[in-house]
């Protein structure tokens, strides 16, 4: 936890705290007996696509929902499907949960290795749209051609060291991945971001390297766009629309190994942040329930603690140990329920801390007032709701302890729903 500094004349300096590793090596999480996978789309659509309970799937077998193209969900394990159910995601997405009874021995599906003749882009779309490290890699492909691709060798949130660890241990794979990216995206500029201190090692590879020692939230894509390229992303747009794509180093490395090893990568590296703030990097099969990680690392938890997929500022809390590790789970944070930050329903006292800390220069003090009253259109039109870069600093510094970030995300969700309803009615 970073506390308010004693002296705070200006806005707080959110330097990344030093990482304190419990053990240096990467801990391998054993293959679980049960696994789960979350797939975008509804259960009804899944039924029509030959995806049934009891069916046996091989590791690396495509289990696409919409029957070829589009989704490229790959089974991470050799298993039989034990259950298919539906689930509502964080921003209201309909997800289908596929549960597997995992077999001990991996049997690899050979569709990917046999598809070498297929055009590169099509092959990637078909098999590698969801890379460990970047679940929505396929959406990046939708923005061809890109001018620049920024590869994150640093992690955005506090205490996460997943991509840092990938840069240290899998630099060769990243270079392979960059070669593949060059083939897809043509001659676009590739920038590898690394923490300062790693710069020299990375520069030997001949890739354009930027060594940064940033403060939070400078690494968030929209803030980074401004810092690196001096471009402001229009509110409500994506960085890709301005020709800059972002990728994690892990996704790049996995793209590399997919082509060198002819196997679809099914492992995810993640940082486990323990209750005392110490870290362990682990490598787990995608779909592994969080419980397996807790058991392997012998982490004791009890009811009322928090399990967070992701880091302390932007993670997503889950209520069950059964929740699986997914392709974009960069961290697992376990927080003691007794020491956790609590929010309150006090009114905004207009102290202005949030306004000073906001990287997007949003009038948060006014925004929270309209959001509390459900005035979502006004929030967007007058108070710049869509400029939000989703860093969470407003809630972090709020002296009234208002869950501002929660209100902001609710506002974005509701506004989106309103627009969708207007679109379909109009």
């Amino acid at each position: 936890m970073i506390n308010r500094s004693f002296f705070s004349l200006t806005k707080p300096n959110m330097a990344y705290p030093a990482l304190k590793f419990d053990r240096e090596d990467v801990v391998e999480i054993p293959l679980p007996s049960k696994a789960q996978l979350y797939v975008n789309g509804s259960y009804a659509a899944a039924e029509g696509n030959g995806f049934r309970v009891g069916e046996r799937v091989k590791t690396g077998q495509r289990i696409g929902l919409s029957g070829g193209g589009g989704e490229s969900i790959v089974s991470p394990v050799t298993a039989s499907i034990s259950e298919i159910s539906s689930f509502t995601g964080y921003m209201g997405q309909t997800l289908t949960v596929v549960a597997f009874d995992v077999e001990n021995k991996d049997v690899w599906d050979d569709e990917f290795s046999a598809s070498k003749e297929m055009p590169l882009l099509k092959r990637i779309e078909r098999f590698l749209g969801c890379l460990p490290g970047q679940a929505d890699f396929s959406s990046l492909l939708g923005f061809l051609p890109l001018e620049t691709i920024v590869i994150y060798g640093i992690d955005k949130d506090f205490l996460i060291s997943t991509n840092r660890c990938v840069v240290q241990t899998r630099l060769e794979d990243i270079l392979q991945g960059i070669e593949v990216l060059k083939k897809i995206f043509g001659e676009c500029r590739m920038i590898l971001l690394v923490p300062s201190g790693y710069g020299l090692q990375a520069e030997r590879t001949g890739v354009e390297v930027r060594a940064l020692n940033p403060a939070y939230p400078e690494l968030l894509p929209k803030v980074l766009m401004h810092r690196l390229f001096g471009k402001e992303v229009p509110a409500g747009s994506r960085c890709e629309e301005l020709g800059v794509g972002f990728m994690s180093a892990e996704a790049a490395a996995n793209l590399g190994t997919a082509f060198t090893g002819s196997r679809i990568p099914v492992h995810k590296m993640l940082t486990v942040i323990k209750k005392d703030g110490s870290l362990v990097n682990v490598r787990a099969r995608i779909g592994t329930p969080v419980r397996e990680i807790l058991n392997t690392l012998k982490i004791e938890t009890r009811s009322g603690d928090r399990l967070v997929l992701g880091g302390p500022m932007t993670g997503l809390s889950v209520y069950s140990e059964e929740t699986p590790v997914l392709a974009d789970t960069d961290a697992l944070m376990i927080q003691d329920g007794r020491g956790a930050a609590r929010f309150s329903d006090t009114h905004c006292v207009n102290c202005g801390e949030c306004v000073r800390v906001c990287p997007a220069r949003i009038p948060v003090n006014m925004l929270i007032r309209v959001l509390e009253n459900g005035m979502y259109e006004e929030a967007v039109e007058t108070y710049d709701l869509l400029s939000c870069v989703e860093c969470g600093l407003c809630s972090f510094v709020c002296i009234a302890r208002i869950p501002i970030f929660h209100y902001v995300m609710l506002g974005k969700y509701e506004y989106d729903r309103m627009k969708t309803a207007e679109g379909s009615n109009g």
Partner: protein
Amino acid sequence: MVNEKLYAGAHAPFWHNGSSIRAKSYNVIMAALPAALMGIYLYGVPALRVLALAVSSAMIWEWLVNRVMRKPTTIGDCNAAVIGLLLGMLFPATMPWYAVILGTLLAIVVGKQIYGGIGCNPFNPTLVAYAMLLLSWKGLLDFDAMLVNYDFGVNMVYPIGALKHFGPEVIEEYRLTDLFMGRQAGAIGATFGLGLIIGGLYLIIRGYIRWEIAVSFLAGVFVTALLFNAANPAKYGGPVFHLLSGYTLIGAFFLVTEDSSSPVNFVPMLIYGAGAGFLTVLIRNVGFFVDGVVFAILMMNLTNPLLDKIRPKALGRRIDYA
């Protein structure tokens, strides 16, 4: 499923920097203590009586209003205590008990709770109460009449009143160091300049009040007084005298900086502070009231929502040129 551990759900961020309204209130109270203690030292038990009554009655009013309005009890955030303490510090030491209790009632109920509690008040609650008392019982806030039995061995005419009524030549009778060290007639907590500045600097350094507002307020007072003084030295007092007398210093560090009624953006804060400083001297020099701080700040409170419209362009905001 029955035996499954259930984890607590929450939304990001999962960290908080540990600040709270209560911590802020404690710090404001602590920063006000040097000036308040000096008041107790100078005026003795009567001053202690006023301060204790003001703080306790403000907290009781807050609790009662919470009960009557069936809202959660907010007495724990100590904002009521701050309001009571500051109001007490603006009173003369001989303020009768009923006026103190009525004052805190006005501050807590009319100044704050009827708008919806902390953060919703458009005006500084302390000053709302003070202004109502001043308009209703002028005599109770006339320091010359109220402090007639006190003698610190200096000129015991309320300095800012003396300037108003007798012109700048009487200023010669006050030593600036006396004014600075609290050896002057006046309110319990508003005369000890050194203590107020120490408290104010503490709050600024800790980030609990904004330096932009305090500094621009003082600059507004100084520059306006300087201009008046330069235009007609025979009629208007000098800027340093204005800074060290009346409610200028307590206003700069404790009243004008009140969160809910002051802006949050950089330029608006400067305009707000400077405007309040300008109006203060304007009321003192050409207006009706002896001290202009109270009404100047209340007037600028009015402009707060408008001023805060001056703000930087948000990241990626599209500007439509119609």
